[in-house]
């Protein structure tokens, strides 16, 4: 029974990882690629870790996998956030069909001021 559930979880993880990588290939610009890839691949890795916990129970190997889940969550989300901010500041264009960009509306003037001061 446990093996069946863990096999199903591995399947879900594989499917989500595949969708994430497909989004990495198909979507048009860097911001959308980051969206799909981070969410899907992180959840896929979490599903595979959970399948290990279910298969082996709460012994040494299972608890180590359980520790890895929050570390993976915090690092991948804040890493994606930092990359997104960095690529926006670095000036990569958004897709031409994008609707709004309040961030560059608000920060463009300030950035120029600070660069003039320094």
């Amino acid at each position, binding site marked *: 029974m446990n093996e069946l559930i863990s096999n199903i979880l591995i399947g879900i993880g594989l499917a989500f990882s595949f969708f994430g990588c497909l989004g990495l290939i198909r979507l048009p610009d860097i911001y959308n690629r980051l969206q799909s890839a981070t969410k899907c691949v992180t959840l896929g890795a979490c599903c595979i870790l959970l399948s290990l916990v279910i298969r082996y129970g709460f012994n040494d190997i299972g608890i180590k996998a359980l520790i890895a889940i929050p570390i993976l969550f915090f690092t991948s989300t804040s890493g994606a*956030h930092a990359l997104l901010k960095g690529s926006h500041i670095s000036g990569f264009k958004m897709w031409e069909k994008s609707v709004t960009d309040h961030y560059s509306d608000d920060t463009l003037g300030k950035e120029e001021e600070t660069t003039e001061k320094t």
Partner: protein
Amino acid sequence: MRAINVLIYFLICFATWLLLTHNLGWQNLVAGSVISLLTTLVFSRYFNFDVTKMINPVRWFWMIIYIIYFIWQCVKANFDVAYRVLHPAMPIKPGIVRVNLTLQGSLARTILANSITMTPGTIAVDIIDDILYVHWIYVRYLDHDRYAYRISGKFERILKKIFE
């Protein structure tokens, strides 16, 4: 306040050590306490969050509810992304919008931003003063109140019960 912070940090380190090694022999306990003491000496000065509020069990109850709600949102986010990727026409309409935060406290804002990164179609870009900038993959409305409720409304309501 400060002493309680250091004590809680030491306990967190010791518990992590015990979970990581999964062994209750005396050698392991001695090594774990020495390592946790070292970690507390070096790193507890960066752990300056207000943790004395968290002793209240009501906040723990809301935290469990938050985790369940977050997992539900996370699964929904993945099906959302899968739909947008697999659809041949790719129904995306991206944009960066601003959301006014009513939540105070840096730790609560950090958890809110990390949760927003994992929820359907949104990813946090930056926090400047009280404004959170969010990249949204499908901008449904341009009216501030409606999209702010949709992006961060329920998260903020539960996080207020946890941290304030």
